[in-house]
């Protein structure tokens, strides 16, 4: 499923909002999530899961083209931990041969 399919699926489930409103809502939700993580704030969605930042320590890397050593600074990477409901439902779908 892509973002545009997500927008269509939501629009199909309700009658009050136009597809434009749904599109704007979906984009706003994604922007908020990006904004939240970019400012170091976690995201906690009950029944779905949580997003947080994991720290990667500074390390010495190599330029794959030249083989030169480069010092890489520490950085944060986004991390998603599925919630219990999502974990269980996804695993059940495997058991049901999906």
């Amino acid at each position, binding site marked *: 499923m892509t973002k545009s399919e997500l927008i269509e699926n939501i629009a199909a489930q309700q009658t009050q909002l136009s597809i434009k409103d749904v599109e704007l809502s979906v984009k706003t*939700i994604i922007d908020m*999530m*990006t904004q939240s993580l970019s400012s170091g704030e976690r995201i906690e969605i009950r029944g*779905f*899961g949580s997003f947080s930042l994991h720290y990667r320590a500074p390390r010495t890397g190599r330029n794959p083209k030249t083989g030169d050593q480069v010092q890489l*600074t520490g950085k944060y990477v986004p991390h998603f931990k599925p919630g219990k409901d999502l974990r269980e439902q996804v695993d059940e779908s495997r058991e049901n041969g999906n």
Partner: protein
Amino acid sequence: MGALTKAAIAEKLFDELGLNKREAKEIVEMFFGEVRQSLINNDQVKLSGFGNFGLRDKKERPGRNPKTGEDIPISARRVVTFRPGQKLKAKVEDYAGTKP
């Protein structure tokens, strides 16, 4: 600092897009509900700019109870994975300037 929750997202849709409170709450529920349903259907979800949610089938492997040291196999399972997109990764990396 607190965490971003469904309630806070709905509040913003109400404040900024002028949806009524019920609509805002429903849209947020449908958003995460659709992503979840797609994953349950074994269909990956690609939200460009943010990231991709995928599924991986894991085989059974040997494990152990960390408390008792007892050997117990970890059963075969399907798990959700998340790969952040370039845009999200770049934005989050900038936060590294502000120390862990």
